[in-house]
């Protein structure tokens, strides 16, 4: 019983952090904030695939998915995790799609520069 639980945790732990894997841009002058689980995470991988949370969506369906999510949790902010390798155009199209459904503020996810600590 205990062994089974242990194995479940060992298997699930790496999967959780993998979820949607993006290399975030590295910045120095960002604001820090703990993860309070109150954001809708929109991720763009280096291949251009868009994810809302951990479900892949197409650009056309993105607006619908985010609207749906915001209907359940209207206070949730949008958190955009764009891979540092993508073209700005891909990120812009996502931001514009979000803007069209009434998202006024988007938070851009970045990684802290390791040497700045």
């Amino acid at each position: 019983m205990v062994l089974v639980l242990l194995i479940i945790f060992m298997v699930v732990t790496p999967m959780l952090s993998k979820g949607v894997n993006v290399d975030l841009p590295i910045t120095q002058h960002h604001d820090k904030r703990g993860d309070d689980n109150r954001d809708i995470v929109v991720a763009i991988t280096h291949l251009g695939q868009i994810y809302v949370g951990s479900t892949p969506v197409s650009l056309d369906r993105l607006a619908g998915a985010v609207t749906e999510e915001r209907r359940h949790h209207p206070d949730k902010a949008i958190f955009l995790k764009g891979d540092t390798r993508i073209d700005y155009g891909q990120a812009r199209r996502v931001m514009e799609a979000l803007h069209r459904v009434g998202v006024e503020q988007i938070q851009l996810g970045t990684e802290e520069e390791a040497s700045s600590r």
Partner: protein
Amino acid sequence: MSFGASSGPGRRPSSEINVTPLIDIVLVLLIVFMVMTPVMLKQLVAAVPRKAVDERPEPPGAAPLVLRLDREGNVSLSGEPVALPGLAARVAERLAHDRRKLVFFDIDDGANYGHAVKVMDLCKGAGAKTLGIVTRD
């Protein structure tokens, strides 16, 4: 069950493995993983910034600061080209007289996203409070 068999007087010695230390170790490992799981999840997003991106139309009156980034990564500030190392100083100088601390970004679609965010970060470091994205609709 096995305890009863081995504790009886004058019986054969127990041939079963003592699992108590094993369970101890397994329990400790289990607790370590249970504690680490939420921590790892948190680290994924904890070091992330909050950046305002808004697309309000430019207010009339004072001309806002528009930073243009082309696909080769060249930066120009309200029309005049600026080298990346001197950018922060120039933005800070321009923002000193701006109460709203607003910078608009007009970024070419072919530009690298990481580079674009880096430029936004520089402007934020130079004192910009609101970062605006120029749309093309």
